[in-house]
């Protein structure tokens, strides 16, 4: 894979030693990044996470606009309109 460590570890190897010792029946080794810089997967992950968080916040703001009686088209919701056919008190 491009930026994923190509080991054969499973989730049960989470406690394995990072220096190459055999712990829990499986040997593993973690190499440092080739030039000591931040790995590419971290950068990609950071960008994707940032976009995801921004989308999440944007959706929240859209929800807030709906809460104040404004739908996506900018129209106010009529008061007393209920969901599921039952009028609220």
């Amino acid at each position, binding site marked *: 894979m491009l*930026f*994923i*460590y190509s*080991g054969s*570890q*499973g*989730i*049960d*190897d*989470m*406690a*394995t*030693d*990072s*220096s190459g*010792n055999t*712990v*829990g029946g499986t040997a*593993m080794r*973690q*190499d*440092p*990044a080739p030039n*000591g810089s*931040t*790995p590419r*997967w*971290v950068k990609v*992950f950071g960008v994707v*996470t940032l976009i*995801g968080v921004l989308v*999440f916040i944007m*959706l*929240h703001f859209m*929800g*807030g*606009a*709906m*809460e104040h009686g404004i739908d996506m088209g900018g129209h106010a*919701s009529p008061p007393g*309109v*209920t*969901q*599921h*056919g*039952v*009028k*609220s*008190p």
Partner: protein
Amino acid sequence: MNMAPWLRKFALTAHVTFSVGWFGAVAAFLALAIAGIASSDAELVRGAYLAMRLTTWSVIVPLAFLSLASGVVSSLGTSWGLLGYYWVLVKLLVSIFVTIVLLTHLQPIDLLAAVATGTSAISSEHRSQQLVMVIASSAALIALVVLTVLSVYKPRGMTRFGNR
């Protein structure tokens, strides 16, 4: 400080159990949130929001903290450490972020449950909160899948703390 093998296995078992439980509880929450916004059965909707509050306070919140704490203990008890490797550090940051987002959504969850308790139906005024429940739980599920992927693949890379 490395833990004894039996203790390390115990901590890891606890961490996996809490994490899997957290994922399952959030998946159940998402199903309830979708039922709450999509169902035309008023009783089902009321029941869904009451169940969501119960599930959140009694299962999701405790498991979130237990997963976070057991993950910290597991990492500190092995040579991975907490800050030495990017995949561990990213897992920690994502877990903290998801837990904070969860805590910020407790109020709307309680609000919807209170409305469901006090009235015969959820009004359209609460549509945004209903929608937020679906969005937030979907995002949480994605984040928890990411945590699992990081745990399994352990992408390489040491931080400046690990390089010392």
